[in-house]
């Protein structure tokens, strides 16, 4: 084994700003200087403003250098960075960087730490403890643990995971399925992608546990085509698990079978809606279906099916390993555990912040995020993706949990937080919400399909200054209709960004 281990993230975001080139340059320099160094392509630590973040393992722990461009590599070698030498881009121990040190990482505990495709690394860092415990438990006991932990669906709906599992467990079926929703289409979110690229085994472990809990032997990961890196890593991780017997006819020698397949989406936002996703998994148009029946009773191919988000499933192993109480002790009210928040848009320190529920939006945006990247003042934040509310600075003290946000007329969604500076035109953002709904509507129900088009047209009139008062009344009426009459959250929540923009920023609508 090499004397020194150096980490250069292979995460797509790090690669998008040059991590591959940096890794290649370090490799060349290592060969030229004949130093005994092993380069590991880890996931990202989630501090994207420092990417590419190069880490070196020293006797005192891992130290960080970043953001490193290919032009910095020669200087790093001059500074003897392989022994933790000082350099203008040196940040000291990675885990003491305040942004990282202040987090509570449970779901993302291994992301950026390990080699994503090394099962040995995974096990050495707490992996498989949860699964091995689950394999000795009855299905009902596993479901009970998950219920007790208070884990709720991290995709956005926040439905209690344990209750969903219990329904599927108690529904008889010759076949059952575990479907992982990895169609992370919300703008401002990247936690699923980061986790799949940085710690894919945790998702697989969570799916196996879910399979054992409800009696399913087949799992599908519905992964969006916009994430080619994540697709590659997930597929490779499944191959590793198959080769080592973690997946297959006898999971870890238990006699229980479990198989996982990746299915690639085809560029439809709506396929993140669970019934639409199941249609797509069956090879059909991703059209929303009327509920009931709920998937836990009749889902994929008409069989009992668990549909869970990547983060929900990847959190299950730590719950089983550390116990439900350990997880439940984080959070507040009915929002238990931690939430991976994602700071995006015009933000100085964009990235992933896993914290217990209850942190305020202001702490996230100002303390962690450090204000805007452009240096301009913040005007608004959109929380919860394209269907989430626009929130002005005056409301930033809202606590980030499911209930507090709902009370404030907003939502947590998948935990995305997009920051806009003072150049944003909120009427244009409201119009975009309608336009996005028009583009991505599955077309099944009229309020969404037609409502979005009429909403966009009405906003065009408002922007043009045409009968503003009257058109704002029409818009409000249309929003009511979309909320009340749409089949799913696409049409039902599109009014949220529109109404919040009108409410908090009336000056942009001629008010």
């Amino acid at each position, binding site marked *: 084994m090499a004397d020194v281990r150096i980490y250069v993230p292979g995460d797509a*975001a790090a690669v998008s700003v040059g991590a591959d080139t940096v890794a290649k340059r370090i490799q060349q320099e290592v060969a030229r200087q004949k130093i005994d160094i092993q380069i590991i392509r880890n996931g990202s630590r989630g501090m994207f403003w420092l990417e590419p973040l190069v880490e070196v393992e020293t006797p005192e722990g891992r130290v960080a250098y970043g953001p490193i461009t290919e032009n910095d590599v020669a200087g790093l070698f001059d500074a003897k960075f392989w022994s933790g030498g000082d350099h203008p881009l040196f940040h000291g121990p990675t885990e003491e960087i305040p942004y990282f040190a202040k987090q509570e990482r449970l779901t993302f505990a291994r992301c950026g730490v390990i080699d994503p495709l090394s099962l040995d690394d995974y096990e050495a860092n707490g992996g498989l403890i949860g699964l091995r415990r689950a394999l000795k438990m009855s299905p009902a006991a596993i479901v009970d643990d998950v219920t007790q932990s208070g884990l709720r669906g991290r995709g956005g709906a926040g439905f209690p995971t344990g209750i969903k599992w219990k329904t599927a467990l108690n529904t008889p079926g010759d076949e059952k399925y575990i479907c992982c929703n990895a169609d992370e289409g919300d703008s401002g979110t990247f936690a699923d992608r980061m986790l799949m690229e940085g710690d894919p085994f945790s998702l697989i472990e969570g799916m196996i546990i879910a399979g054992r809990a409800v009696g399913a032997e087949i799992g599908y990961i519905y992964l969006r085509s916009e994430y080619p890196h994540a697709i590659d890593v997930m597929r490779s991780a499944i191959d590793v698990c198959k080769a080592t017997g973690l997946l297959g006819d006898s999971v870890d020698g238990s006699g229980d079978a479990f198989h996982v397949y990746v299915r690639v989406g*085809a560029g439809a936002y709506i396929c993140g809606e669970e019934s639409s996703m199941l249609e797509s998994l069956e090879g059909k148009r*991703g059209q929303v279906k009327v509920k009931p029946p709920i998937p836990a009773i009749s889902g994929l191919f008409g069989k009992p099916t668990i549909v869970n988000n990547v983060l929900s499933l990847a959190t299950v192993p730590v719950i089983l390993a550390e116990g439900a109480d350990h997880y439940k002790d984080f959070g507040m009210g009915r929002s238990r555990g931690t939430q991976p928040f994602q700071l*995006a*848009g015009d933000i100085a320190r964009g990235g992933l912040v896993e914290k217990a529920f209850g942190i305020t939006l202001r702490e996230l945006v100002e303390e962690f995020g450090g204000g805007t990247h452009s240096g301009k003042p913040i005007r608004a934040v959109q929380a919860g993706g394209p269907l989430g509310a626009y929130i002005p600075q005056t409301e930033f003290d809202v606590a980030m949990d499911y209930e507090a946000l709902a009370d404030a007329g907003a939502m947590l969604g998948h935990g995305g937080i997009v920051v806009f500076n003072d150049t944003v035109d909120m009427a244009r953002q409201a119009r975009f919400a309608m336009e996005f709904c028009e583009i991505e509507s599955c077309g099944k129900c009229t309020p969404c399909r037609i409502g979005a088009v009429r909403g966009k047209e009405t906003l065009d009139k408002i922007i043009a200054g045409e009968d503003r008062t009257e058109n704002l009344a029409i818009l409000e009426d249309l929003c009511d209709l979309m909320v009340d009459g749409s089949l799913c959250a696409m049409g039902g929540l599109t009014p949220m960004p529109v109404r919040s923009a009108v409410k908090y920023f009336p000056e942009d609508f001629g008010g």
Partner: protein
Amino acid sequence: MVVILNNLDDEPIHRICGEHGRRPDELIEILHTVQKEHGYLTDAALRTIAEALNISRAEIHGVVSFYHDFYRAQPARHILKICRAEACQAVGSDDLAAYAERKFATTMGDKGAGGQIGIEAVYCLGNCALGPAMLIDGKLHGRVTPERLDILAETDLSSGEARNG
């Protein structure tokens, strides 16, 4: 009039369908693979897939037309997919898109128009902390300013090599 539906071109499509067990639920996977190998989905290819999976051409048309990823005509040699979603809007992706349209003298969303460079909108590439983001022939780039796009155009778009986005 005799119409010959089967010809030698069918063979690779039948092979791909066979690799997916001729299962209708694998239709989208099959369409991805066929498109990757042939650039776009021809009428003949869809007819062969319908035959192999024993489903109607209408059903396949329904699926192909539903999803944004599929091309029914020859796409451009190089494809730029610019993120137009909120997080990238917040850091200037609209200006970047307008710049790219002017630079390459093409209109966004003109799918399957052939030519050298095509520009498409995409809604989120999961690179929201390092926007504006774009894919160039499937490769992700972050913090893409007009100046950076000029450099990328030199390095990534100057070759004549045909690739799929």
